[in-house]
């Protein structure tokens, strides 16, 4: 993972000519943080087609925001924040197509297709599904914890006090645990 700090006025890191001024080029960022972006998109959008659309929007948002990166936080934090915010705004816009957004989850639950059952049994998939069912404020916290951010980083990112974060995380853990246990039964 690339954890580079940058200060002062940043040259545009989006060009393809290498790591100018400390920020890696866009292609490198995608290689390093692509999986993180993909997982965040997956934890907000279940429908693969819509998820593809969301992933593109996240990449575009990062591309647009990169010149404003001043190295005040780690690049990973900067990217995760953009990915979360874009995902949340994407989810709110999906009110326009609620059927499309909800249909795949219902289908997965209703069809006893062995292949899909196998996928559902997959622990990671179950974790993703359970996360998607969490209320947004709790989902945001749990995703960042699962992504390996420290509590201090999360508190800074969400601009909340550490004890408020602990409380929110505890609620999120309880809800997640209950959902996962139901899934395993």
């Amino acid at each position, binding site marked *: 993972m690339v954890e580079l700090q940058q200060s002062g006025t940043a040259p545009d890191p*989006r060009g393809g000519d290498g790591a100018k001024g400390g920020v890696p080029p866009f292609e490198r960022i995608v290689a390093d943080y*692509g999986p993180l972006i993909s997982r965040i998109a997956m934890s907000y959008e279940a429908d693969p087609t819509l998820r593809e659309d969301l992933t593109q929007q996240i990449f575009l948002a990062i591309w647009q925001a990169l010149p404003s990166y001043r190295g005040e936080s780690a690049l990973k934090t900067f990217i995760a924040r953009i990915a979360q915010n874009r995902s*949340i705004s994407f989810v*709110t816009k999906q009110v326009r197509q609620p059927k499309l957004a909800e249909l795949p989850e219902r289908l997965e639950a209703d069809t006893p297709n062995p292949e899909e059952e196998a996928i559902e049994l997959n622990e990671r998939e179950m974790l993703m599904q359970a996360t998607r069912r969490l209320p*947004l404020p709790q989902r945001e916290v749990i995703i960042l914890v*699962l992504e*390996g951010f420290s509590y201090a980083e999360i508190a800074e990112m969400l601009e909340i006090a550490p004890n*408020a974060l602990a409380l*929110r995380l505890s609620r999120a853990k309880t809800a997640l645990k209950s959902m996962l246990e139901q899934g395993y039964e």
Partner: protein
Amino acid sequence: MSDFDLDRLGDVWRQQPDPAEMERLQRTAIAVARRARISAILDVCAAIAVGAVVVFLVVANPQPKTLVLGSGAIVVLLVSNIRQRKLRKLALKDLTGTTEDMLDQSITRIETTLRHHKFTLWGLPLVLIGAFIFSAVVMPQRRAIFGGLSQIPWFRTTWLAVWIAALIGLGVFLVVAIRRGASELNRLRAMRDAYRQERDSSAP
């Protein structure tokens, strides 16, 4: 899952995508960046082209009227450019700020858009009246504007039909946009309330 270990779940969560998935992600990102670059270049080119055309028209026809119209067009171009930059800055702030700030700003933006749409919808009849008055005033010059076109049979009816269709289309678009905006606004408000509730209940 009896032992609820977030560290272990984190390991499960952070499984690396397979190489094919990674390649697909790379392809998507490169395509997005390419499109964004092209779009930025086209924006600049379009602004230069429009500006050049306006300047050319003013130079080719140096009359006070053309000068006023040309200056007006350039001012409109500049204002729209500045507005777009402002909107981009706001969007950037949304992206890099906290979720609650983003929700607040989204709510404000949708409220403003809804107000504009409602204003336009209620202003449509006024625009219609204005258009009829304008058409009546311009009537004697119609030949000069449309030239030989006004001689074509059904031209007037077709012209009127196009206008009515455009106005109906605009009306329908506005009604749909207002309804969609209202539901989006409700959803955003519900989310913001959820955040506030969570924050208040977590307060020491």
